[in-house]
């Protein structure tokens, strides 16, 4: 049994070596397809994480009318503290906000003309759930003291729409690319079958079983797919490591989320995906083009 398997492995290697250019094309296509597929999957996953985490990060910001005295603002804050589903209430006094703004403004000369502080007091409220953020925003909008309220609902809705689009687009692209890779493997096997038709004929005539004839081609396709998957995994893992060290920490919000995915997991998953694609492509091709009788 082991001798037979070794012989089949040798036959698969010989097949691959004789068709090395085609196999190289097949490995490259699988690698490109799986890198893109993996890239889409990671992007969709990250957007999902951001979309999931964002509601918890968004606060309700209440800008109080400038005419409202600070004592009334303190009463409003106390009322908010007592309200259900509120975890934290913080006041950003208009004086401090104005100082911060002036510090961050690139050309202080322009602001010199302003004698009065145009900024209102701001109450920042952190809720315990995304739903409470939205209901609280509705409640405080009705207050006569509030000039405007920001609850981030629009941002959230847009982000969720983008996430949905990326997920759907990513899924379609992934399916198309996977089919393309499997087709490429199948085509390589088809050409190998054509090139080795004499050997196959001789095998049939001396009494080889169908499984014996088919196995080297299936081994060859699976190996090509696996190599493509490993290459894609290595590329993506390297890219991911590079991004997580350079670009991602610079992006607000994203840097705070624990987005680092284990590169070994990415590489391993893509290698398995490549093997499955190679196996599927070669089995379909062998069943379709290798007529045994």
């Amino acid at each position, binding site marked *: 049994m082991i001798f037979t398997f070794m012989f089949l492995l040798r036959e698969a290697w010989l097949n691959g070596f*004789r068709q090395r250019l085609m196999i190289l094309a097949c490995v490259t296509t699988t690698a490109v397809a799986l890198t893109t597929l993996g890239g889409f999957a990671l992007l969709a996953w990250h957007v999902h994480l951001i979309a999931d985490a964002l509601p918890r990060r968004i606060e309700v910001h209440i800008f109080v009318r400038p005419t409202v005295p600070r004592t009334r603002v303190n009463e409003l804050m106390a009322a908010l503290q007592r309200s259900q589903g509120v975890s934290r209430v913080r006041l950003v006094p208009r004086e401090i906000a104005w100082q911060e703004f002036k510090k961050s403004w690139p050309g202080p000369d322009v602001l010199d003309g302003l004698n009065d502080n145009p900024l209102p007091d701001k109450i920042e409220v952190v809720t315990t759930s995304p739903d409470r953020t939205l209901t609280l925003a509705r409640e405080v909008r009705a207050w006569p003291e509030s000039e405007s309220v920001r609850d981030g609902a629009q941002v959230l809705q847009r982000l969720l729409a983008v996430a949905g689009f990326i997920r759907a687009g990513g899924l379609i692209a992934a399916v198309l690319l996977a089919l393309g890779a499997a087709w490429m493997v199948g085509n390589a096997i088809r050409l190998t079958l054509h090139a080795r038709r004499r050997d196959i004929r*001789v095998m049939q*005539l*001396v*009494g080889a079983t*169908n499984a014996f004839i088919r196995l080297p081609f299936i081994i060859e396709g699976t190996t090509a797919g696996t190599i493509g998957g490993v290459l894609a995994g290595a590329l993506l893992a390297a890219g991911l490591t590079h991004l997580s060290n350079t670009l991602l920490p610079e992006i607000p919000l994203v840097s705070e989320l624990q987005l680092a995915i284990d590169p070994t997991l990415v590489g391993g998953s893509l290698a398995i995906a490549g093997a499955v694609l190679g196996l599927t492509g070669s089995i379909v091709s062998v069943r379709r083009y290798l007529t045994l009788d």
Partner: protein
Amino acid sequence: MKLAHVSLQHARGALALEDVSFKVEPGEFVFLIGQTGSGKSSLLKILNRELKPTGGEVWVDGTEVTSLHRRGVPSLRRKLGVVFQDFRLLPDRTLFENVSFALRVIGVHGKPLNQRTIEALDRVGILPRARMFPHQVSGGEQQRAALARAIVNRPQLLLADEPTGNLDPETSRGIMDLLLEINCSGTTMLIATHDQPLVDAVGRRVLELQGGRLVRDEAQGGYDSAEIQQDLEELHPATGGSGAVKGSEPG
């Protein structure tokens, strides 16, 4: 081996074989002759189940070939050795590898594989050429290698389709001697051929096909039937009839 009322009609409607019946006993040496297109190759292909007849029954070593399930075909072929006019050796393998290939595919490996391959190569007289590739040896040696591949599985029946078709007369005689020697060890032989001098010289059983029909079954015949031979001898007493026939290649 037994064929009973075997017919073969191609998809385009042409009749390749029509109601062919004959029986070959174990150990017999039989020539199958006839013009090109008479159905010789089709008959051999039916025997190793490359083709399925459209009618009749074919028995090989107790197995009814026509009703054999696809999974049973490899077992049937392991009982048969097949030799072709164009040798069908694998060009990128040595003669040793070509012969041992037939054993590997049926699961023989290691020492028995080497031993049996060497025996087969030695038996056909090309052991010194074992490490050479097909393109490095002569046509006769290539056919000997093909013969070694056919006998290495120790088949009960050897089918040969024009085994001397691509060889010069002297080499052909060598191959035919080899076939007779293999037959002496008990292997049944069915040889499809155009080689008139060899058929005449060997003087074994002859089956003749014409237009897909079996027209002659002669126990110790020549390429031409006994009646034609007699007529030719009467026409050309000096040459014994052979001069007139040699020029008329059956096609």
